[in-house]
């Protein structure tokens, strides 16, 4: 079927099977491999993207359900800069880098999208709220401490 999407601000038109997963469309058809697959059954959150403002697991979304939608992936976070110097990290990415919120990095793109949605919905710096917001994203490296720290740092800055 024919599908139109707005991916990270760019309009995209594809002719794909209707039951193809959004995850595969992003990774294989659009080459946006920043979004990861960890389990394929909606448990780990590594494939989290922001779909029309909501965090979803892209492995559970058939493309036929999202025609006309807006999708944000990790590739849409950093500000594009002149080719020569590459993208500039957004405030969440920078906070993760400072605090040590990314270790092996495989959960990081999904974690960042869940965090982005929390910040964008004016989520505060409180520990419980942040933990709830990222409860669908598994991380095996960090113990979550530094991830929560990073998100709280950005939320505090936004409150000021």
């Amino acid at each position, binding site marked *: 079927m024919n599908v139109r999407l707005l991916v990270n601000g760019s309009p995209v038109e594809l002719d794909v099977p209707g039951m193809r997963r959004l995850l595969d469309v992003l990774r294989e058809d659009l080459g946006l*491999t920043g979004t990861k697959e960890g389990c394929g059954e909606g448990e780990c959150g590594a494939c989290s993207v922001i779909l029309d403002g909501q965090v979803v697991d892209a492995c559970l979304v058939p493309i036929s359900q999202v025609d006309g939608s807006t999708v944000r992936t990790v590739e849409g976070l950093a500000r594009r800069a002149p080719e020569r110097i590459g993208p500039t990290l957004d405030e969440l990415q920078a906070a993760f880098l400072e*605090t040590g919120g990314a270790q092996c990095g495989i959960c990081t793109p999904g974690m960042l999208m869940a965090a982005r949605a929390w910040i964008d919905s004016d989520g505060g710096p409180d520990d419980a709220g942040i933990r709830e917001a990222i409860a669908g994203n598994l991380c095996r490296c960090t*113990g979550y401490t530094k991830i929560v720290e990073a998100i709280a740092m950005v939320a505090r800055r936004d409150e000021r």
Partner: protein
Amino acid sequence: MTIRTEPRRTGSPVAPQTGTPDALLLHPGEVAPGRARARAPLRREGPEKLTGEAKYADDLVFPGAWFGATVRSTEAHARLVGIDLADGFDWSTVVVATAADIPGENIVSLISDDQPVLVPVGGEIQHHAEPIALIAAPDRETLRAARRGLTIRTESLPPVFDPFASDHVFAHYEIASGDIDAGFAAAELVLEGTYRVGHQEQLYIENNAMIAVPREDGGVTLHGSLQCPYYVHKALKRALALDDVRAQVIQAETGGGFGGKEEYPSIIAIHAAILALKCSKPVRMIYDRHEDIAATTKRHPAIVTHRTGVKRDGTLVAQDIEVVMDGGAYCTLTPVVLSRGAIHAGGPYRCPNVRIRARATRTNTPPNGAFRGFGAPQTEFAAETHLNRLADALAIGPLDIRRRNVYRVGDTTPTGQVLRESVAGEEVLERAAEAAEFERLREKTARTRDDAAVDGSQSPLTSGKSRRASGIGLALAWHGAGFTGSGEVKLASVASVELTAAGGIRILTASTEMGQGTKTIFPQLVADTLGVPYEAVEIAPQDTAFVPDSGPTVASRTAMVVGGLCIKAAERLRDTVESATGRPFAEGYRDHAAKSGGVRIDQRFEPYPGIHFDDETYRGDAYPAFGWASCVAEVDVDLDTGEVAVTNVVAVDDVGRVIHQTLAEGQVEGGTLQAIGYATIEEMKLRDGRYLNDRLATYLIPTALDAPRITSILVEAPFSGAPHGAKGVGELPMDVGAPAVVAAIHDATGAWIHELPATPERILAALGVTAVAPSPTVPAGADRVEGAIEAPIVEGTDPRPDAPTDPQPLRGPQK
């Protein structure tokens, strides 16, 4: 073959030039006790990981690549009679490989040669996930159809699932010191206990993944998710009959390992390579989560029995310990896991009379292998829980019994190793107790229990009050740094530092980055040694065509051993350049490179001075040094459901020397949460040798909501044998979290949990017969010795009515 990376790279991402966050990191020159000395650099490959630019194996694009799959047994033990291809499928559209297609030896090279790459027809299937055949197809749909058309014929054989019933022993050790009988004769209390731990899955979030690309020279290049490029390289050469050059292994960005990508990637690499050579196309072997959990290695289950003699004051006088590990169907790394488990089995405590007997046997379950801690978390859980029960029986506090027995400088371990330096057990213990306010909170939880008891509620289950009970627990552990015994000497690792002809400084090692920060700390160490900025030092890709074999990225050895080699290589490079130019390295190296060309220094491991171990007698310095860790955990236990919430943890770890505070804390926090998962929710259930919960929906790991606040405190007791004093950090926290949680559960409920994980079912079973009694809170029928202690008293083991019977006495070969 070229790698097409999408989206198009636009140069390296950079951090924004905004101000750094306040109060998170120390500023240059600032010193805090036990903390890194100056502000450390940011994670080297962090920006790529944070923008999605980092390429993990499944992100790599190879045009025209085929998809590979493994056909596995569905029986735990059987003879393979035949492999049949169904009519009605066009087999010319795919490639099928069996044992007959293996160009070299049908062996996955590791310690023992017992594991085949594929079971040959006529051969024995040893576990239900054993690889039988391989299929590659140009697309996933054809691959699925081909898999449906391939069937295997077998004759069932009787399986063995009980490690005690198995007569196939992979390894056994006996470690003894003093006179065990005299020790027990002198004891004033003798306590016995049996402790069990089950499988644990590493559960890296990136599944195992390997892509094989055929080379024009007839060889094969592997790109994959892996910890040890040269393990894969060696295994490939042997199974594919290739030489050093025609087998090439390149690490892709790796999404976590924890030991799970130490030995298993060798099998996947061989499988992918066989298919790639047969179909002459790149072949992608990307496991999905189900296959990864069902087939790959787990932490070894263990049954540990302690019989311990003590004086009334808590002084240990005799430890008799039996360790039995379930190796699974093949040897893998089992002898080394068992060895580390055995050496650590007594815990970090001085005891003059010790006997440790350990063995690992074969069962018809998927092979167990490396997992963070490598045998020590199993035996140290038993040692710590047993010590807490001893303290309880003697009415001594958990902190006091540890103060009395913890190793100090000059003490001798059961292998006869004299602890000459870098002994920080006491320090981590005191700092953890202090930071967590252990004694004060423990008195508080005791008062709460007493108050509940005064209310007349013998059991919180029936009182209608206090449906939640809080408790606090403490544990202490040691962890040998680097390879066991003569392991490092045999490895003879090499790390190189190069001044390139173009004036660049480059580190060459096979040590992989998988989250710990290898690519950050090596340039830090080399830059400091050379006196150049961190940014001036590059690190070469982990590619066997370019980097020397610096050994596997395991055993918390990267910072200590390979980091030490990097420093020594850098020192030699500095001296070479400085003596040639007569100027400080930083001022002269570019000119030197321009005039005289590049210089490469290869630094080989040299034995640490004064460290000797005899593999035959198991006597001597088992490790060059030990790291020390203490953990205090607070829990809330729901007395209706048996659920445990770990609410707060203080983790104190002596890592020798902190190279990068943020990264080291990250290791402590992550390892602590893995240990909490091990203690509370991570359980592999088996039926007929098959994992029942082999999906992420059923094998649970802690989420952000399950995770406690973790306060990590780093202690530095440097090891003089390493130029920078570092002892490693990765595994330490894994040893100590579970016994702290179990101690806290006891403090909250009065129930001792003898088997990990402490699931709600086990806690309720323990509570069902052991209501919280008036102070002191000890379950009826447990090991409490009231009043004066008559010596010697042999106490029972497990108060639970449904507890499995204690293991049979050890059989089989004993040294």
